[in-house]
């Protein structure tokens, strides 16, 4: 089988599905990498829930402005045409259905599009939700970017989430290292798979029952080097 996509390739694949002109929020972690891989001919406006429309690239080392950070607290830049606003307005944008796409990470996605990405529910862990529930509930489309299985090989796309939900029935599409899967009315539909992987192989790594799209294509991404991370 062909190697699964690496994290940058997964981010690249998500970026290909974001139409020009979209207003998009990228969640903390792997979703943030999507902004590094946008097709150059598309203009997309990134929303940060802490009050930025028109987030630009990460600030260069030594040129950080700590009044201009992402939701993940990383120093960034603002593009020409950016706007700043307060948290209440920011979440009006999110909840009010003005945001075209939220790209989020996931612990689990259910066959019906339920998302669990904020808490493992384990005793002793500190609960922390941030803007995850608002984004999952409010964005018009929710793209999930996640490895297909956990590090232990347990499936992350399953019939029902066992972790506490972030939002019910909200996920539009899941982009994994093995496949692109749309959550349809009758459950998950495989739109793309990496070469050399059979549908049965993919199903074996998935808890929920999959359907193969009649137009299923090969999931391909260019060779990409890992992107640099800011130390804060």
């Amino acid at each position, binding site marked *: 089988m062909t190697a699964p996509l690496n994290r940058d390739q997964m981010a690249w694949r998500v970026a290909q599905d974001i139409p020009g002109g979209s207003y998009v929020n990228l969640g903390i972690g792997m979703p943030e990498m999507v902004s590094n891989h946008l097709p150059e001919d598309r203009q997309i406006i990134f929303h*940060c*829930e*802490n*009050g*930025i429309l028109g987030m630009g690239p990460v600030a260069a080392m030594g040129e*950080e*402005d*700590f*009044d*201009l*950070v992402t*939701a993940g*607290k990383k*120093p960034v830049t*603002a593009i020409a045409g950016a706007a*700043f*606003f*307060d*948290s*209440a307005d*920011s*979440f009006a944008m*999110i*909840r009010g259905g003005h945001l075209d796409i939220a790209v989020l990470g996931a612990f689990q996605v259910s066959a019906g599009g339920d998302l669990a990405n904020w*808490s493992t*529910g384990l005793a*002793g862990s*500190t*609960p*922390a*939700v*941030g*803007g*995850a*529930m*608002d984004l999952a*509930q*409010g964005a018009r489309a929710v793209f999930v970017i996640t490895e297909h299985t956990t590090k232990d090989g347990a499936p992350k796309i399953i019939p029902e989430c066992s972790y*506490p*939900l*972030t*939002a*019910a029935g909200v996920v539009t599409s899941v982009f994994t290292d093995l496949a692109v899967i749309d959550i349809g009315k009758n459950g998950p539909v495989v739109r793309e798979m990496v070469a050399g992987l059979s549908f049965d192989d993919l199903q074996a790594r998935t808890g929920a029952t999959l359907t193969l799209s009649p137009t299923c294509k090969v999931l391909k991404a260019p060779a990409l080097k890992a992107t640099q991370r800011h*130390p*804060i």
Partner: protein
Amino acid sequence: MSIDKRVPSLEDAVRGIADGAVVAISGFGEAGNPTELVHALIEQGAKDLTVVNNNAGTGRMGLAKLLAAGRVRKVICSFPRSAKSVVFQELYKDGKIELEVVPQGTLAERLRAGGAGIGGFYTPTAAGTPLAEGKETRIIDGRDHVLEFPIRADVALIKADKADPFGNLTYRKAARNFAPAMAMAATLTIVQAREVVGLGDIDPEHVVTPSIFVDRIVEVSQPISEAAALLQQVSR
């Protein structure tokens, strides 16, 4: 008598904050934190506080220092967990602090509602999740909504960029975040501004928080950067 909300010192700015007060503190991570006002509150000595903030302090200064000083009974926030949020984690694990986790948008809207005289609102956020347990729900336009109540604060500690003597405020970039909603939601709104300018120096079209929401202003021209301090620690 002319209106002038400037006070001469940080000590004067935090005077009279009572034990048991609900204190809303602006800021998101390290952006927009009124670090000097929080340190003045530590000196002032009020205890048994309930703090409303998006986070629960990072590093060892500002809100983290207030928590470490044992002055806070409860934190209402959206995201208390981060790699650098060490003080809160220790207190929480030892059962020494109470936590109410609120989705970030619900936190902002509860503050806004508190300041706007709204008795509550229904939001789809958190419907069907553990954070909606025990709350009244209602189906509106075919979607589940959760009833949320306003947050009123006794005191708001706010960091602004510019203030005029009336208390009109502007902010800098993403340091605005929760400050406007908190300024509205508090009975006593205390502002540290990087620069106090004259009346009319802020174009009325550019005022972000109008003066009616502000009670005291103190100029802190070179505020501590909690983020820069953290970055220094990282690169060492």
